[in-house]
């Protein structure tokens, strides 16, 4: 079952439709409801290796639906501490729960200050309205 549209207030958002939940020097990353809805049911998550380096604004993974593949853009720079194996095994988890069970990676942030450049939920919703 696809989730209902939502953009939680406790997350930071990247214009390429990625979110970050920043907790101290670490963050959990994923794709937004908008991204998963645009792609449709995900059937493949091409995950980075644990230990891989993420650079803000650059692709670090791919998510793929039946019809299309899409790069996942890093909202923040960091080192991958953990990949969500549940999503690798069942990519549709992202459609069902994009901000919870459908998280993609957990990273140790290289520069926690980068988060200041991301949008809050209100700004991201405004961004979606302008893009749409």
């Amino acid at each position, binding site marked *: 079952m696809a989730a209902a549209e939502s953009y939680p207030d406790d997350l930071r958002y990247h214009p390429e439709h990625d979110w970050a939940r920043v907790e101290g020097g670490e963050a959990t990353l994923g794709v937004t409801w908008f991204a998963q809805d645009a792609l449709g*049911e995900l059937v493949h998550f091409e995950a980075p290796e644990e230990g891989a380096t993420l650079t803000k604004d650059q692709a670090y993974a791919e998510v793929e639906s039946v*019809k299309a593949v899409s790069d996942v853009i890093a909202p923040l720079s960091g080192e991958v501490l953990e990949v969500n194996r549940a999503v690798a095994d069942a990519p549709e988890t992202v459609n069902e729960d994009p901000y919870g069970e459908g998280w993609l990676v957990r990273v140790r942030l290289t520069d926690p200050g980068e988060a200041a450049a991301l949008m809050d939920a209100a700004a991201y919703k405004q961004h979606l309205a302008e893009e749409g």
Partner: protein
Amino acid sequence: MPVQYEGVIPEHRAVRSDAGAFDVSHMGELIVEGKGAREFLQSVLSNDVERLEPGLAQYTLLTNERGGIVDDLIVYELAPERFLLIVNAANREADFDWLHEREPDDAKVRDVSDDHALIAVQGPRALERLGLPAAPAFTFAEGEIAGVVCTVNRTGYTGEEGVELLVAPEAAGELWDHVLERGVVPCGLGARDTLRLEVCYPLHGNDISPETDAISAGLGWVCALDTGFTGAEVLRRIKESGPEQKLSAFVMEEAAIPRQGMPILEGGEVTSGSHSPMLERGIGLGYVLAELAQPETELTIDVRGRNRRARVVKKPIYSREER
């Protein structure tokens, strides 16, 4: 026709388990008629038109002098001197031009695409939901669904039992509504593609083209070489010497989805690739050297710079018996 309504995967599964409807009105319809129509079609189509009679249809190829495939289509004998060709939308004009340039004095081709809408209803419960009796594949007859008159063709592009309903454009909306009211799931282009790929029906423009021949494509079974159709001699030579490459079906052994145009490292290229909702893994078609076309042969697909293992399988990739 949209790419999807509710989603490619649920639509695909509806067709495999129950019934789905596709608005394929974009397809082209050509009429070839006249005293010489049969003889003319026999000279340009690969299958044996002599085996048709009114009420019978046939899958066939329009071939060029090199044995290449101008289009793949279904020919319906409407009457002894009148045939309907249902052709790929993208090739409608090319097919018309091809036939028109070659038509003899006693046969005439007409593009009647704008006079027809086409609704495919496919799946193991398609006939039951439409209230239609069973009938042999590749037959057709006039019929009606909830009072809407249509031609009921026992054809399809999904590997499932079902029909394709040829209807006047002004009645198509009403027919579509009736079909959906009976619990048939509306399906889009996405599911149409994954369904045909699972059963290895080639897609013109991807897997077959004017540059690929019928023998290499595994379509020798629709080539009646003795009828002397365009390119038959070339195809006979390819058949006798054995094709260099064969259109082969493969499934991914590693998590990855092959896509059209991806290189096959052992030699060749993916011509169609997607995710199989029934197998829940990547599947595809591609031309590989004949010696690699044997089932169980390992292939390596270059998935955007990553090498992923695949295995050649017998066609079709998915069949009903495996349920």
